[in-house]
């Protein structure tokens, strides 16, 4: 647990500084006014949601190569976090969009993409909940995660061709140049880093929970068989 304390204290300090900087240090962008500050929290959420998806897909491939339950825990825990962060990103996105576009939901490509991720996570959990045997559950869920992972790039490619985007493009625009000024970029990247570390901390906790549940089940069943 000493290791855990280190994570916790680092995150607490780092994220406090990020929050302070987001409100007092970072300047406002012209078109967005005060709501510029949303960017420092909303975008990292969307990023973490995507990261969870990638981690889950990689863990699923590893599981199919070598059926160790650890890989399945990573895939499952990461999907769980992915669902949380897609919900957070889309809810906060809707709050912000309601202010700036006057409409909480308008199928902007990025809203659509995050919605797509949410659907996949939901289907993934629906599939898992229907299978009792843990090995079978892990195997079929892994296959589904991989198929969804393959569909994802197509989705990213198709959506912008069909829907026009209003979404601000603060980091990278079409010419590939960074549009944020120095201070904004500092805060933004620090926040991205903080959220990424936070994600791995949460992943660690969730995996610990899954391992504990696994151990408990094993113990209970062995006790039952001994009787």
């Amino acid at each position: 647990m000493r290791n855990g304390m280190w994570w916790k204290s680092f995150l607490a300090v780092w994220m406090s500084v990020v929050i302070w900087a987001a409100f007092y240090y970072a300047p406002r962008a012209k078109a967005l006014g005060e709501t510029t500050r949303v960017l420092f929290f909303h975008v990292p959420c969307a990023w973490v949601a995507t990261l969870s998806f990638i981690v889950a897909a990689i863990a699923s491939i590893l599981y199919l190569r070598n059926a160790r339950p650890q890989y399945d825990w990573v895939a499952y825990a990461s999907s769980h976090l992915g669902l949380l962060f897609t919900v957070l990103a889309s809810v906060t996105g809707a709050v912000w969009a309601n202010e700036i576009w006057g409409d909480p939901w308008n199928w902007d490509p990025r809203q659509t993409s995050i919605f797509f991720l949410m659907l996949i996570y939901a289907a993934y959990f629906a599939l898992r909940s229907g299978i009792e045997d843990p090995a079978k559950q892990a195997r079929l869920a892994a296959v589904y995660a991989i198929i969804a992972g393959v569909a994802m790039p197509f989705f990213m490619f198709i959506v912008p061709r069909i829907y026009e985007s209003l979404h601000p493009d603060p980091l990278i625009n079409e010419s590939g140049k960074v549009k944020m000024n120095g201070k904004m970029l500092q805060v933004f990247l620090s926040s991205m880093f903080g959220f990424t570390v936070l994600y791995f901390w949460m992943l660690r906790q969730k995996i610990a929970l899954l391992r504990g549940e696994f151990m408990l089940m094993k113990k209970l069943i062995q006790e039952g068989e001994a009787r």
Partner: protein
Amino acid sequence: MINLAKVLDAVAQADSAVAQMAQPEKVVGENIFVVMAVTLLIWFGILGYLFYVDMKLRKLNDRLAE
């Protein structure tokens, strides 16, 4: 089914929606409460999740220790 209908509907409305929103209104984005709401939603979400996992983990460890 409803969501599918929305996706499909959006294809139809994409053009008109863009036309409507191309001109930004005069004062938008100065509402600091929106920023507050977004920030709080995210932190409550994350903390709530962590507390939930922590609570379950503690219960589980107790049971395993028995």
